[in-house]
């Protein structure tokens, strides 16, 4: 995982498999970085995610609530077809926005590259 701050946006690049075991670790690291920063939004780059199950959905809902409490948004970008399928099936698509490209997502939320 790689975390960068771009203005008011916390950009998190996820890699590999997101299951229960990975999600537990991710949520601690992401929350810690988010709380230390003055970011409002969290944007995930999903380009390198090779697998995700419903534990990942739970992790995103948790981070969505964190961003929302700061008046911010959570955006997922670069999702593979398989991840997109889970995203749509879970109903996550109703509360979390997605963008095809990371650049677009960052630009829309006032961050700079």
């Amino acid at each position, binding site marked *: 995982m790689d975390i960068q701050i771009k203005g008011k946006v916390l950009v998190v690049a996820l890699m590999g498999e997101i299951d229960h*075991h990975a999600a537990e670790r991710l949520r601690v690291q992401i929350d810690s970085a988010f709380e230390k920063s003055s970011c409002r939004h969290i944007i995930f780059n999903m380009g390198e995610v090779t697998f995700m199950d*419903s534990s990942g959905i739970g992790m995103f*809902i948790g981070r969505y609530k964190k961003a929302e409490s700061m008046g911010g948004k959570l955006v997922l970008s670069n999702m593979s077809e398989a991840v997109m399928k889970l995203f749509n099936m879970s109903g996550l698509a109703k509360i979390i926005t997605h963008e095809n490209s990371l650049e677009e997502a960052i630009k829309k939320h006032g961050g700079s590259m």
Partner: protein
Amino acid sequence: MIKLEMEALPENVAMARVVASTFIAKFDPTLEQLTEFKTAVSEAVTNAIIHGYGDKRDGEFVTLTLSSDNRKIKAQISDRGIGIEDIEAAKEPLFTTKPEMERSGLGFTVMESFMDEVEVSSKKDEGTTITLAKELGEQQ
């Protein structure tokens, strides 16, 4: 038939996925079928560890049995944990007994969407067995 017995540890779910993927790969599934099968197995094994055993998982095991009947691929996931008290409630989308762990409550929803058959047999304090089956259809 392949039988994998693993210690009930969250880090072992990745191993279960590798074995399930390798098993189904022999049948030349589409990439989508492989992903769906692997994801459903991941959900069931995770549930066995997190919900079946919870905090009392020391020295406990989850068994994954993989078998085939022509091009119908089966995965059976068994634990000897606490069992599911109300199976219908557990299957409801977004139902979870562990919201504090950020469980989404979508495990059964994923299994049912990705597999052709999902069977649950469970007895309180004795354990749960989930049987998943996927029909691969004609070879592409």
